[in-house]
């Protein structure tokens, strides 16, 4: 299977790309965590990055967001090379929520969210009215108004995750990167977070790139998907198009079935959780 760069399609090129990575590789200790990946992210869309553990999702995300400089290859942000932009310039357009960010003790929710204004504040100035508004909106968006004075350490995993999302939102980025944003959340809060992100995407045109593990979530949530395996981009495209049993089974190394969803008709992934074929086939034979 070959990697299909979306930008190769002229029809899609006309919609423009906001982030364009060409032949990006990241090598750690002689091992390529990302191997000649080329992807194009389109503005105003939600892109999911999927793949098995260790397939290089986080590393690719860091490259695309400028946190990590690729060993080779180039990343363009709105047509400009990331390497040529200052950290501040990047931070005013791009916000990143890492896989498990450290929380310094004693910081409360509001103070954390305040830090999101850092790239927008000129040196040696205090918070201004505009900053305050952005902070208020961000806290309201994640529904943490009642907990704004609570210390981060005293929050549940999910609440803390929302506080971090609020910090990223306070940054007022055009592009938001999230690395496994739903991993600490219960189903309800996962749904709420995805709804929030989707709303920001639809209403404010926020471009979102997220690493997600739940394939069915990806089908519901994402417009595009980048499927990775062992550092390489296996396939890119709309989930409806590229989620085939063969491709997914190959990507994850376990049996994944894809059936039409009974309500929406979109693909629904069935994972063979107990991959013991003989046992199940045997059980079927008895029937």
């Amino acid at each position, binding site marked *: 299977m070959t990697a299909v760069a979306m930008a190769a399609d002229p029809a899609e090129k006309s919609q423009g790309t906001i982030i364009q990575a060409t032949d990006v590789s990241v090598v750690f200790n002689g091992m390529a965590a990302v191997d000649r990946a080329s992807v194009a992210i389109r503005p105003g869309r939600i892109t999911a990055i999927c793949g098995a553990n260790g397939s290089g999702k986080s590393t690719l995300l*860091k490259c695309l*967001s*400028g*946190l990590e400089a690729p060993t080779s290859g180039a990343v363009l942000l709105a047509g400009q090379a990331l390497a040529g932009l*200052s*950290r*501040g*310039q*990047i*931070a*005013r357009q*791009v*916000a*990143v929520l*890492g896989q498990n*960010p*450290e*929380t*310094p*003790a*004693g*910081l409360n929710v509001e*103070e*954390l969210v305040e*830090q*999101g204004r*850092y*790239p927008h*504040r000129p*040196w*040696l100035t205090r918070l201004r009215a505009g900053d305050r508004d952005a902070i208020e909106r961000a806290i309201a968006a994640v529904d943490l108004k009642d907990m704004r004075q609570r210390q981060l*350490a005293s929050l549940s995993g999910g609440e803390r995750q929302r506080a971090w999302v609020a910090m990223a939102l306070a*940054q007022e980025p055009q592009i938001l*990167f999230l690395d496994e944003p739903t991993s600490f959340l219960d189903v309800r809060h996962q749904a709420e977070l995805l709804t929030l992100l989707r709303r920001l995407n639809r209403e404010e045109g926020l471009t979102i790139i997220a690493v997600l593990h739940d394939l069915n979530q990806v089908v519901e949530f994402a417009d595009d998907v980048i499927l990775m395996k062992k550092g390489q981009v296996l396939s890119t495209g709309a989930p409806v198009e590229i989620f085939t049993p063969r491709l997914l089974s190959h990507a994850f190394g376990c049996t994944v079935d894809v059936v039409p969803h009974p309500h929406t008709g979109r693909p629904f992934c069935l994972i063979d959780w107990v991959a013991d074929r003989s046992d199940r086939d045997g059980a079927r034979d008895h029937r």
Partner: protein
Amino acid sequence: MRPGSVHAASAISPRLIFSSGLVLLIVLAILALMQGGSLVAWSDIAAAPFRPETLAQAIIETIRAPRLSAAILVGICLAVAGAVMQTVLRNPLAAPDILAVTTGAQLALVIVTLLLPFYVPSLAATVFGGVFGGLACLTLGGGLRAPPVRLALAGIAVSLSFAAISSAIVLMADDRASGIVLWSAGILDQTGWTKVATVGPAVAIGLFVVAMMARALDLLGLGEDSAKGLGITRTVTVLALGASVVLAGAAVTLGGPIGFVGLAVPNLIRGIGITRHRQVIPLSALWGAVVVLLADVTAQWLSAEGSSIPTGAIVACLGAPTMLILLRFARIGQEQRPRALSISSRLPAGILLAILLVASAIAVVLALAVGDGVAKTMAELAAVFDLRAPRLLVAMGAGMLLAGAGVFLQAATRNPLCGPETLGLAQGAALFSLAALLGGLLPGSFGFQLVAAAGSFAALFCLFAFGVHRTPERLVLYGIALAASLGACGTIVVVEARLQATQALSWLAGSTHARGMDDVTALLPWLAFLLIAAVSFCSRLDVLVLGDDTARSLGLSTSRTRFAAAAMAATFVAGAVSSIGAIGFVGLLAPHAARLLAGPKHARLLPVSMALGAILVVIADMVGRSIIAPRELPAGIVTALVGAPVFALLMHRRRS
């Protein structure tokens, strides 16, 4: 993961390590016997077993052989104690000196020797003191299962304060600087076999107990739950710790507080891939003996002309290089970041301001009024004002600089254990100050300050040049080793150059003795720099503590900021140390105390830390001047004394 569990690139055969250690030990032993003039020759050593009645034989029997045995025993005891503690506490940072067992034992020894009017067997005293020190460390640090870094932090705090108490007692009993240097650095001089003979049985019992427990120790390394499942009870833990404390106590009885052997040797042995205690324990013992003996031979060789360099100082000099090798080539287990940068809470701004104002007012009044006698009238106050006001101001300035340095360092490394004294910056500046003093530069002059700055920057360079700082634990482990090495070099300089007591102490421990208005003006540029740096950096420090990725995504170039913050801290330290010497505890503790009062945001944290730092040094100076007047206790010793209870409070709040 087991403590100190390491993955070596290649495993060297244990047998090879054992035989090479044995050969080295024998060579060193012969060197040790022959050292010091030409009184003892080869033939005498060869004939020694037959006990001929010669002068050489007498020297061997009454001086050199006892010293040799003491060195070997101390090495064995410390290394085995360290190995056991690391396993039982599942903490690669555990060691008799880090857990305050050594300093507790030393304190007890100082007390029974210098203060008590009746005789107490020294081994009983050191074991009791060791237990006391260890318990104090565990209580403060949060028990047997406390996270490694927290336990080490508690141990360092207890150690520093115990060492300070010891120094204070020694100073009160004996005004000579040599006294304090010798008491605090570990001397293996023996007169006859008495000490070796008295501790011998205790060492034998301790080693026997540990040897019997080798298998149990293997299991303990697997983790508490698995160990419990395999039938290891709390008794085993207590017994193992008890044996290691007895061994550490025996070592202190024989040679005083010698550090690092217990930390470095077992970690190195594990670092080359040896994990079974059946092998770790004997190899640690052997190499511990080699290290101490090597240090002792070096010490005797260096102090040939009548001065006597403490063996402990030599061991400590070897501390930093050893640790560097260890950290470079071995992977120490539990490489996780302490989850949080210490606890913090906050008071409303008004109350906080009121507390600080009242506290500084009290400190200022006390500092001016109290000294050699209390000034009760305005006339008396006016008489001493000219003497005391400059000291007050110098103390305040230095306190602010040290506390500022502490905040900058802790933010730059995101490590609550960092401070000017735990990273060696203060000791670097102090060592270079001593050199400047010997070179004839006037304290307070610009050249002098420059040399001090060179010292703190040299320490900073040593810290960061070798790439061991990937995790906070490594950084601090190496920093403490570096601090001890630099401090030990300072001790050696003092002994070799026969510096005057007050001068030497002033730089090694920190004192405001005889500071005048000139010194105050000399501090002003540094304080101006501190203020500018604090104002311009505080929002960056706020972002920096969020972690590398987050900080970068917020637009901060982290490596540059971190480097700048560390360099600024080194500058602050140089300013403080060039004016009053290496005052400990302030830079480490003032930020923690301030975090407790003011919360984690640097706009509040920095000023509050500086205020607390200033108050701490002023009070310490006042106490030092008055407590044994007309003599003076260096302020640095008092900061450690004052710092300990404050720190105890801090650790307790933190756990509840």
